[in-house]
Protein backbone atom coordinates (compact mmCIF):
# COMPACT_ATOMS: atom_id res chain seq x y z
CA UNK A 1 0.00 0.00 0.00
CA UNK A 2 1.31 3.45 -0.78
CA UNK A 3 -1.30 6.14 -1.12
CA UNK A 4 -4.85 6.01 0.17
CA UNK A 5 -7.19 4.35 -2.28
CA UNK A 6 -8.71 6.33 -5.06
CA UNK A 7 -7.49 9.14 -7.23
CA UNK A 8 -7.66 11.68 -4.46
CA UNK A 9 -5.68 14.89 -4.56
CA UNK A 10 -3.72 15.96 -1.48
CA UNK A 11 -6.07 18.96 -1.19
CA UNK A 12 -9.11 16.72 -1.18
CA UNK A 13 -7.52 14.44 1.39
CA UNK A 14 -6.65 17.39 3.59
CA UNK A 15 -10.30 18.40 3.49
CA UNK A 16 -11.41 14.89 4.41
CA UNK A 17 -9.05 14.96 7.38
CA UNK A 18 -10.45 18.22 8.64
CA UNK A 19 -13.98 16.89 8.25
CA UNK A 20 -13.03 14.21 10.76
CA UNK A 21 -12.88 11.21 8.42
CA UNK A 22 -10.97 8.65 10.49
CA UNK A 23 -10.32 6.28 7.63
CA UNK A 24 -8.58 8.97 5.58
CA UNK A 25 -6.65 10.13 8.60
CA UNK A 26 -5.48 6.61 9.43
CA UNK A 27 -4.30 6.03 5.88
CA UNK A 28 -2.54 9.36 5.66
CA UNK A 29 -0.71 8.55 8.88
CA UNK A 30 0.47 5.26 7.36
CA UNK A 31 1.44 7.01 4.16
CA UNK A 32 3.48 9.61 6.00
CA UNK A 33 5.03 7.13 8.44
CA UNK A 34 6.22 5.00 5.52
CA UNK A 35 7.39 8.07 3.64
CA UNK A 36 5.67 6.65 0.59
CA UNK A 37 5.68 8.53 -2.72
CA UNK A 38 4.14 11.97 -2.50
CA UNK A 39 4.24 12.30 1.28
CA UNK A 40 6.18 15.54 1.15
CA UNK A 41 3.59 17.13 -1.13
CA UNK A 42 0.87 16.01 1.22
CA UNK A 43 2.66 17.40 4.29
CA UNK A 44 3.10 20.66 2.39
CA UNK A 45 -0.64 20.88 1.80
CA UNK A 46 -1.37 20.14 5.46
CA UNK A 47 1.24 22.54 6.83
CA UNK A 48 -0.89 25.72 6.69
CA UNK A 49 -3.63 23.96 8.67
CA UNK A 50 -1.27 22.89 11.45
CA UNK A 51 0.22 24.90 14.29
CA UNK A 52 -2.88 25.24 16.41
CA UNK A 53 -2.67 22.15 18.59
CA UNK A 54 -0.90 21.90 21.90
CA UNK A 55 1.55 18.98 21.69
CA UNK A 56 1.84 17.40 25.11
CA UNK A 57 4.65 14.91 25.72
CA UNK A 58 4.03 12.31 28.39
CA UNK A 59 7.17 10.52 29.58
CA UNK A 60 8.12 8.31 32.46
CA UNK A 61 9.57 4.95 33.35
CA UNK A 62 7.81 1.74 32.27
CA UNK A 63 4.96 0.94 34.63
CA UNK A 64 4.56 4.44 36.02
CA UNK A 65 1.06 4.56 34.57
CA UNK A 66 1.49 6.77 31.50
CA UNK A 67 -1.05 4.95 29.35
CA UNK A 68 -3.66 4.76 32.09
CA UNK A 69 -3.16 8.44 32.84
CA UNK A 70 -3.53 9.31 29.17
CA UNK A 71 -6.69 7.22 29.03
CA UNK A 72 -8.12 9.36 31.83
CA UNK A 73 -7.03 12.63 30.27
CA UNK A 74 -8.51 11.64 26.94
CA UNK A 75 -11.77 10.74 28.67
CA UNK A 76 -12.01 14.32 29.92
CA UNK A 77 -10.84 16.12 26.80
CA UNK A 78 -12.96 13.91 24.56
CA UNK A 79 -16.21 15.20 25.99
CA UNK A 80 -15.57 18.71 24.67
CA UNK A 81 -12.91 18.57 21.97
CA UNK A 82 -11.10 16.32 19.53
CA UNK A 83 -8.08 14.76 21.15
CA UNK A 84 -5.42 12.49 19.67
CA UNK A 85 -2.84 10.19 21.18
CA UNK A 86 0.42 9.09 19.60
CA UNK A 87 1.64 6.18 21.63
CA UNK A 88 5.23 5.15 21.03
CA UNK A 89 6.64 1.74 21.95
CA UNK A 90 10.07 0.33 21.15
CA UNK A 91 10.98 -1.63 18.04
CA UNK A 92 12.96 -4.79 18.69
CA UNK A 93 16.54 -4.28 17.58
CA UNK A 94 16.73 -8.01 16.91
CA UNK A 95 13.65 -8.65 14.78
CA UNK A 96 12.57 -5.19 13.66
CA UNK A 97 9.11 -5.99 14.97
CA UNK A 98 7.31 -4.34 17.85
CA UNK A 99 4.60 -5.11 20.36
CA UNK A 100 2.45 -2.02 20.77
CA UNK A 101 0.36 -2.43 23.87
CA UNK A 102 -0.70 0.99 25.05
CA UNK A 103 -4.25 0.78 23.72
CA UNK A 104 -4.95 -1.80 26.41
CA UNK A 105 -5.10 1.00 29.00
CA UNK A 106 -7.29 3.23 26.87
CA UNK A 107 -10.23 0.99 26.06
CA UNK A 108 -12.72 3.09 28.01
CA UNK A 109 -12.32 5.89 25.49
CA UNK A 110 -11.65 3.89 22.37
CA UNK A 111 -15.13 4.36 20.94
CA UNK A 112 -15.53 8.09 21.41
CA UNK A 113 -15.80 9.83 18.06
CA UNK A 114 -13.65 12.71 19.30
CA UNK A 115 -10.74 10.45 20.14
CA UNK A 116 -8.04 9.13 17.84
CA UNK A 117 -5.36 6.80 19.18
CA UNK A 118 -2.44 5.68 17.06
CA UNK A 119 0.33 3.30 18.13
CA UNK A 120 3.78 3.97 16.73
CA UNK A 121 6.94 1.88 16.84
CA UNK A 122 10.29 3.63 17.21
CA UNK A 123 11.66 1.89 14.08
CA UNK A 124 15.28 2.44 15.01
CA UNK A 125 15.10 6.02 16.24
CA UNK A 126 16.74 6.61 19.61
CA UNK A 127 15.57 9.08 22.23
CA UNK A 128 12.16 7.65 23.05
CA UNK A 129 10.35 8.91 19.95
CA UNK A 130 10.13 7.79 16.36
CA UNK A 131 11.36 10.32 13.82
CA UNK A 132 8.01 9.86 12.09
CA UNK A 133 6.27 11.25 15.20
CA UNK A 134 7.09 14.76 14.08
CA UNK A 135 5.23 14.25 10.81
CA UNK A 136 2.41 12.28 12.42
CA UNK A 137 1.85 15.07 14.94
CA UNK A 138 1.63 17.57 12.10
CA UNK A 139 -1.01 15.46 10.35
CA UNK A 140 -3.11 15.15 13.52
CA UNK A 141 -2.73 18.87 14.15
CA UNK A 142 -3.90 19.70 10.63
CA UNK A 143 -6.82 17.30 11.09
CA UNK A 144 -8.01 19.48 13.97
CA UNK A 145 -7.03 17.39 16.98
CA UNK A 146 -6.05 19.44 20.01
CA UNK A 147 -4.38 18.56 22.27
CA UNK A 148 -2.17 15.82 20.87
CA UNK A 149 -0.79 13.65 23.63
CA UNK A 150 2.49 11.96 22.78
CA UNK A 151 3.40 9.02 24.96
CA UNK A 152 7.09 8.21 24.69
CA UNK A 153 8.59 4.78 25.25
CA UNK A 154 9.03 3.93 28.89
CA UNK A 155 11.85 6.28 29.66
CA UNK A 156 13.14 8.97 31.91
CA UNK A 157 16.91 9.15 32.07
CA UNK A 158 18.19 9.50 28.53
CA UNK A 159 15.09 9.69 26.37
CA UNK A 160 14.46 13.41 26.38
CA UNK A 161 13.80 13.90 22.67
CA UNK A 162 10.12 14.65 23.24
CA UNK A 163 10.95 17.99 24.86
CA UNK A 164 11.92 19.28 21.43
CA UNK A 165 8.71 18.14 19.76
CA UNK A 166 6.23 19.00 22.50
CA UNK A 167 4.96 22.38 23.70
CA UNK A 168 4.39 20.94 27.13
CA UNK A 169 6.07 17.93 28.72
CA UNK A 170 4.68 15.90 31.59
CA UNK A 171 6.97 13.54 33.47
CA UNK A 172 5.12 10.70 35.18
CA UNK A 173 6.80 9.07 38.14
CA UNK A 174 5.50 6.50 40.59
CA UNK A 175 6.50 5.58 44.12
CA UNK A 176 8.75 2.60 44.60
CA UNK A 177 10.67 2.85 41.34
CA UNK A 178 13.98 3.92 42.79
CA UNK A 179 15.78 5.40 45.73
CA UNK A 180 16.65 8.99 46.41
CA UNK A 181 19.72 8.81 44.18
CA UNK A 182 17.53 8.03 41.16
CA UNK A 183 15.75 11.33 41.63
CA UNK A 184 19.11 13.10 41.87
CA UNK A 185 20.45 11.84 38.55
CA UNK A 186 19.07 13.58 35.52
CA UNK A 187 16.74 13.09 32.62
CA UNK A 188 13.24 14.19 31.85
CA UNK A 189 12.62 15.34 35.39
CA UNK A 190 14.79 18.41 34.95
CA UNK A 191 13.40 19.35 31.56
CA UNK A 192 9.71 18.63 32.10
CA UNK A 193 7.10 21.33 32.59
CA UNK A 194 4.84 19.33 34.87
CA UNK A 195 5.75 16.45 37.16
CA UNK A 196 3.17 13.86 38.12
CA UNK A 197 3.54 11.29 40.86
CA UNK A 198 1.02 8.67 39.87
CA UNK A 199 -0.28 5.78 42.02
CA UNK A 200 -0.98 8.29 44.79
CA UNK A 201 -2.94 5.61 46.64
CA UNK A 202 0.37 4.01 47.59
CA UNK A 203 1.63 4.88 51.06
CA UNK A 204 4.99 6.32 50.01
CA UNK A 205 3.71 8.55 47.20
CA UNK A 206 3.92 11.74 49.27
CA UNK A 207 7.52 10.89 50.12
CA UNK A 208 8.33 10.40 46.43
CA UNK A 209 6.79 13.78 45.64
CA UNK A 210 8.79 15.38 48.45
CA UNK A 211 12.05 13.92 47.11
CA UNK A 212 11.34 15.19 43.64
CA UNK A 213 10.52 18.60 45.07
CA UNK A 214 13.83 18.64 46.94
CA UNK A 215 15.78 17.65 43.84
CA UNK A 216 14.15 20.33 41.74
CA UNK A 217 14.66 22.93 44.49
CA UNK A 218 18.34 21.99 44.59
CA UNK A 219 18.48 22.57 40.85
CA UNK A 220 17.15 26.08 41.38
CA UNK A 221 19.88 26.81 43.90
CA UNK A 222 22.62 25.63 41.61
CA UNK A 223 21.15 27.56 38.71
CA UNK A 224 20.00 24.49 36.80
CA UNK A 225 16.33 25.29 36.74
CA UNK A 226 14.28 23.61 34.06
CA UNK A 227 14.74 24.67 30.47
CA UNK A 228 17.94 26.56 31.21
CA UNK A 229 19.38 25.21 28.01
CA UNK A 230 20.51 26.97 24.83
CA UNK A 231 21.74 29.81 27.01
CA UNK A 232 18.25 31.23 27.36
CA UNK A 233 16.72 32.59 30.47
CA UNK A 234 15.16 29.66 32.23
CA UNK A 235 11.45 29.14 32.53
CA UNK A 236 11.37 29.79 36.25
CA UNK A 237 12.71 33.29 35.75
CA UNK A 238 10.02 33.80 33.15
CA UNK A 239 7.28 32.71 35.46
CA UNK A 240 6.74 28.96 35.19
CA UNK A 241 7.44 26.84 38.22
CA UNK A 242 7.12 23.10 37.63
CA UNK A 243 4.08 21.87 39.52
CA UNK A 244 4.37 18.47 41.17
CA UNK A 245 0.99 16.77 41.17
CA UNK A 246 -0.32 13.60 42.75
CA UNK A 247 -2.63 11.43 40.67
CA UNK A 248 -4.23 8.03 40.91
CA UNK A 249 -4.97 7.26 37.29
CA UNK A 250 -6.76 3.99 38.01
CA UNK A 251 -9.24 5.70 40.34
CA UNK A 252 -9.29 8.87 38.25
CA UNK A 253 -8.20 11.27 41.00
CA UNK A 254 -6.01 14.29 40.30
CA UNK A 255 -6.82 14.26 36.58
CA UNK A 256 -8.78 17.55 36.67
CA UNK A 257 -5.80 19.24 38.25
CA UNK A 258 -3.41 17.83 35.64
CA UNK A 259 -5.68 18.94 32.82
CA UNK A 260 -5.87 22.43 34.36
CA UNK A 261 -2.10 22.66 34.65
CA UNK A 262 -1.60 21.58 31.04
CA UNK A 263 -3.97 24.36 29.95
CA UNK A 264 -2.22 26.80 32.27
CA UNK A 265 1.13 25.96 30.70
CA UNK A 266 -0.25 26.65 27.26
CA UNK A 267 -1.57 30.03 28.40
CA UNK A 268 1.80 30.82 29.96
CA UNK A 269 3.66 29.86 26.76
CA UNK A 270 1.57 32.36 24.82
CA UNK A 271 1.54 35.14 27.42
CA UNK A 272 5.26 34.96 28.18
CA UNK A 273 6.35 34.76 24.56
CA UNK A 274 8.12 31.47 25.24
CA UNK A 275 5.92 29.84 22.61
CA UNK A 276 8.02 31.48 19.92
CA UNK A 277 11.17 29.96 21.42
CA UNK A 278 9.51 26.56 21.57
CA UNK A 279 8.54 26.77 17.91
CA UNK A 280 12.02 27.84 16.86
CA UNK A 281 13.59 25.07 18.93
CA UNK A 282 11.20 22.54 17.42
CA UNK A 283 11.85 23.64 13.85
CA UNK A 284 15.63 23.64 14.31
CA UNK A 285 15.57 20.22 15.93
CA UNK A 286 13.50 18.64 13.18
CA UNK A 287 15.65 20.15 10.45
CA UNK A 288 18.70 18.94 12.29
CA UNK A 289 17.31 15.41 12.56
CA UNK A 290 16.38 15.30 8.89
CA UNK A 291 19.71 16.68 7.71
CA UNK A 292 21.49 14.23 10.01
CA UNK A 293 19.58 11.36 8.48
CA UNK A 294 20.62 12.29 4.97
CA UNK A 295 24.09 13.07 6.20
CA UNK A 296 24.52 9.66 7.80
CA UNK A 297 23.61 7.88 4.60
CA UNK A 298 26.30 9.78 2.70
CA UNK A 299 28.78 9.62 5.55
CA UNK A 300 28.91 5.86 5.27
CA UNK A 301 29.99 5.97 1.63
CA UNK A 302 32.58 8.68 2.31
CA UNK A 303 34.10 6.72 5.17
CA UNK A 304 34.35 3.58 3.03
CA UNK A 305 36.44 5.52 0.54
CA UNK A 306 38.56 6.95 3.35
CA UNK A 307 39.56 3.47 4.48
CA UNK A 308 36.96 2.49 7.04
CA UNK A 309 37.64 -1.25 6.97
CA UNK A 310 41.39 -0.82 7.43
CA UNK A 311 40.81 1.55 10.31
CA UNK A 312 38.52 -0.95 12.05
CA UNK A 313 41.09 -3.68 11.57
CA UNK A 314 43.89 -1.48 12.94
CA UNK A 315 41.83 -0.81 16.06
CA UNK A 316 40.92 -4.47 16.45
CA UNK A 317 44.58 -5.59 16.46
CA UNK A 318 45.46 -2.68 18.75
CA UNK A 319 47.79 -1.20 16.21
CA UNK A 320 45.99 2.16 16.34
CA UNK A 321 44.52 4.04 19.22
CA UNK A 322 40.77 4.59 18.45
CA UNK A 323 40.73 8.38 18.85
CA UNK A 324 43.72 8.74 16.53
CA UNK A 325 42.16 6.33 14.01
CA UNK A 326 38.92 8.34 14.00
CA UNK A 327 40.83 11.58 13.51
CA UNK A 328 42.76 10.13 10.56
CA UNK A 329 39.51 9.00 8.92
CA UNK A 330 38.03 12.48 9.28
CA UNK A 331 41.17 14.06 7.90
CA UNK A 332 40.95 11.84 4.84
CA UNK A 333 37.27 12.67 4.36
CA UNK A 334 37.71 16.42 4.67
CA UNK A 335 41.31 16.68 3.49
CA UNK A 336 42.23 18.98 6.34
CA UNK A 337 42.91 19.10 10.02
CA UNK A 338 39.29 18.76 11.16
CA UNK A 339 38.35 16.05 13.56
CA UNK A 340 40.86 17.08 16.15
Amino acid at each position, binding site marked *: *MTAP*AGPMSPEHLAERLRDGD*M*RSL*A*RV*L*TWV*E*RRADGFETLLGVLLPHAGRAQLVGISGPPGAGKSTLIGRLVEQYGTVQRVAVLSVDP*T*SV*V*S*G*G*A*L*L*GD*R*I*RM*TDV*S*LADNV*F*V*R*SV*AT*RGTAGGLSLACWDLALVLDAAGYDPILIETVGAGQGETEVRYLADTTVQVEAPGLGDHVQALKAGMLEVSDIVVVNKADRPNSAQTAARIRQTLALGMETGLAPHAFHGQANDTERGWVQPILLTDALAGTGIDELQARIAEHRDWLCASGVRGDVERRRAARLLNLLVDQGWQARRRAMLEVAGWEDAVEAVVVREQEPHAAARRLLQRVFGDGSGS
Partner: protein
Amino acid sequence: MSGSPPFRILVAKLGLDGHDRGAKVIARGLRDRGFEVIYTGIRQTPAMVARAALQEDVDLLAISILSGAHNTLVPRVINLLREQGQADVPVLLGGIIPEADRPAMRAAGVAEIFGPGTTIGETADWILAALGRDE
Protein backbone atom coordinates in the same frame (compact mmCIF):
# COMPACT_ATOMS: atom_id res chain seq x y z
CA MET B 1 11.70 -8.14 6.04
CA SER B 2 14.48 -5.56 5.96
CA GLY B 3 14.06 -2.69 3.54
CA SER B 4 10.30 -2.48 3.49
CA PRO B 5 8.23 -1.14 6.38
CA PRO B 6 6.89 -3.78 8.76
CA PHE B 7 3.33 -5.02 8.40
CA ARG B 8 0.94 -3.85 11.11
CA ILE B 9 -1.25 -6.49 12.71
CA LEU B 10 -4.00 -6.09 15.26
CA VAL B 11 -4.28 -8.96 17.73
CA ALA B 12 -7.71 -8.69 19.32
CA LYS B 13 -9.27 -10.54 22.23
CA LEU B 14 -12.92 -10.49 21.27
CA GLY B 15 -15.69 -11.23 23.75
CA LEU B 16 -15.91 -11.89 27.44
CA ASP B 17 -13.31 -14.56 28.08
CA GLY B 18 -10.19 -13.36 29.81
CA HIS B 19 -7.83 -16.09 28.75
CA ASP B 20 -5.27 -14.27 26.69
CA ARG B 21 -2.17 -16.39 27.11
CA GLY B 22 -2.56 -17.57 23.52
CA ALA B 23 -3.10 -14.05 22.17
CA LYS B 24 -0.04 -12.80 24.03
CA VAL B 25 2.13 -15.64 22.75
CA ILE B 26 0.98 -14.92 19.21
CA ALA B 27 1.56 -11.18 19.65
CA ARG B 28 5.05 -11.68 20.97
CA GLY B 29 5.83 -14.40 18.40
CA LEU B 30 4.78 -12.22 15.49
CA ARG B 31 6.83 -9.36 16.93
CA ASP B 32 9.80 -11.72 16.91
CA ARG B 33 9.14 -12.37 13.23
CA GLY B 34 9.33 -8.66 12.44
CA PHE B 35 5.69 -7.56 12.54
CA GLU B 36 4.40 -4.50 14.32
CA VAL B 37 1.71 -5.97 16.53
CA ILE B 38 -0.92 -3.90 18.28
CA TYR B 39 -2.56 -5.79 21.11
CA THR B 40 -6.01 -4.67 22.27
CA GLY B 41 -6.17 -6.38 25.63
CA ILE B 42 -9.05 -8.56 26.79
CA ARG B 43 -12.84 -8.17 26.65
CA GLN B 44 -13.20 -6.19 23.47
CA THR B 45 -16.54 -5.63 21.77
CA PRO B 46 -16.82 -5.90 17.98
CA ALA B 47 -17.07 -2.10 17.76
CA MET B 48 -13.91 -1.63 19.79
CA VAL B 49 -11.96 -4.08 17.65
CA ALA B 50 -13.18 -2.46 14.44
CA ARG B 51 -12.33 1.02 15.75
CA ALA B 52 -8.80 -0.06 16.67
CA ALA B 53 -8.34 -1.64 13.23
CA LEU B 54 -9.51 1.62 11.67
CA GLN B 55 -7.31 4.00 13.65
CA GLU B 56 -4.24 1.80 13.48
CA ASP B 57 -4.74 1.16 9.73
CA VAL B 58 -3.68 -2.43 10.13
CA ASP B 59 -2.78 -4.81 7.31
CA LEU B 60 -4.37 -7.78 9.04
CA LEU B 61 -6.66 -8.57 11.96
CA ALA B 62 -6.04 -11.64 14.14
CA ILE B 63 -8.92 -12.44 16.49
CA SER B 64 -8.48 -14.74 19.45
CA ILE B 65 -11.62 -16.14 21.00
CA LEU B 66 -12.12 -19.03 23.42
CA SER B 67 -15.57 -18.34 24.81
CA GLY B 68 -17.64 -19.94 22.09
CA ALA B 69 -19.26 -16.65 21.09
CA HIS B 70 -17.48 -16.54 17.73
CA ASN B 71 -20.64 -17.30 15.75
CA THR B 72 -22.21 -14.10 17.03
CA LEU B 73 -19.25 -11.78 17.41
CA VAL B 74 -16.91 -12.49 14.50
CA PRO B 75 -19.43 -11.67 11.72
CA ARG B 76 -20.18 -8.39 13.51
CA VAL B 77 -16.53 -7.39 13.39
CA ILE B 78 -16.26 -8.30 9.72
CA ASN B 79 -19.39 -6.31 8.87
CA LEU B 80 -17.99 -3.28 10.66
CA LEU B 81 -14.71 -3.60 8.77
CA ARG B 82 -16.66 -3.61 5.51
CA GLU B 83 -18.75 -0.62 6.53
CA GLN B 84 -15.67 1.41 7.37
CA GLY B 85 -13.90 0.64 4.10
CA GLN B 86 -11.62 -2.13 5.33
CA ALA B 87 -13.09 -5.08 3.45
CA ASP B 88 -9.61 -5.84 2.14
CA VAL B 89 -8.15 -6.49 5.61
CA PRO B 90 -7.77 -10.28 6.04
CA VAL B 91 -9.24 -11.66 9.26
CA LEU B 92 -7.59 -14.58 11.03
CA LEU B 93 -9.30 -16.53 13.75
CA GLY B 94 -7.54 -18.37 16.55
CA GLY B 95 -8.66 -20.12 19.72
CA ILE B 96 -11.32 -22.76 20.16
CA ILE B 97 -13.43 -22.92 17.01
CA PRO B 98 -15.27 -26.26 16.64
CA GLU B 99 -14.96 -27.96 13.26
CA ALA B 100 -18.71 -27.68 12.73
CA ASP B 101 -18.60 -23.88 12.98
CA ARG B 102 -15.72 -23.37 10.60
CA PRO B 103 -17.63 -23.32 7.30
CA ALA B 104 -19.92 -20.60 8.66
CA MET B 105 -16.93 -18.59 9.85
CA ARG B 106 -15.32 -18.82 6.42
CA ALA B 107 -18.60 -17.88 4.78
CA ALA B 108 -18.74 -14.82 7.03
CA GLY B 109 -15.38 -13.72 5.65
CA VAL B 110 -12.74 -15.28 7.90
CA ALA B 111 -9.66 -15.93 5.79
CA GLU B 112 -8.08 -18.64 7.91
CA ILE B 113 -8.61 -20.41 11.22
CA PHE B 114 -5.77 -21.54 13.43
CA GLY B 115 -6.51 -23.87 16.32
CA PRO B 116 -4.45 -25.14 19.25
CA GLY B 117 -1.12 -26.62 18.22
CA THR B 118 -0.46 -24.16 15.40
CA THR B 119 3.11 -22.88 15.53
CA ILE B 120 4.07 -19.23 15.37
CA GLY B 121 6.07 -20.04 12.27
CA GLU B 122 3.04 -21.45 10.42
CA THR B 123 0.99 -18.41 11.35
CA ALA B 124 3.71 -15.95 10.32
CA ASP B 125 4.31 -17.74 7.02
CA TRP B 126 0.60 -17.74 6.27
CA ILE B 127 0.37 -14.02 7.01
CA LEU B 128 3.34 -13.14 4.82
CA ALA B 129 1.89 -15.18 1.97
CA ALA B 130 -1.55 -13.60 2.42
CA LEU B 131 -0.12 -10.10 2.43
CA GLY B 132 1.89 -10.86 -0.67
CA ARG B 133 5.38 -10.70 0.63
CA ASP B 134 7.82 -13.57 1.03
CA GLU B 135 10.56 -13.33 3.60
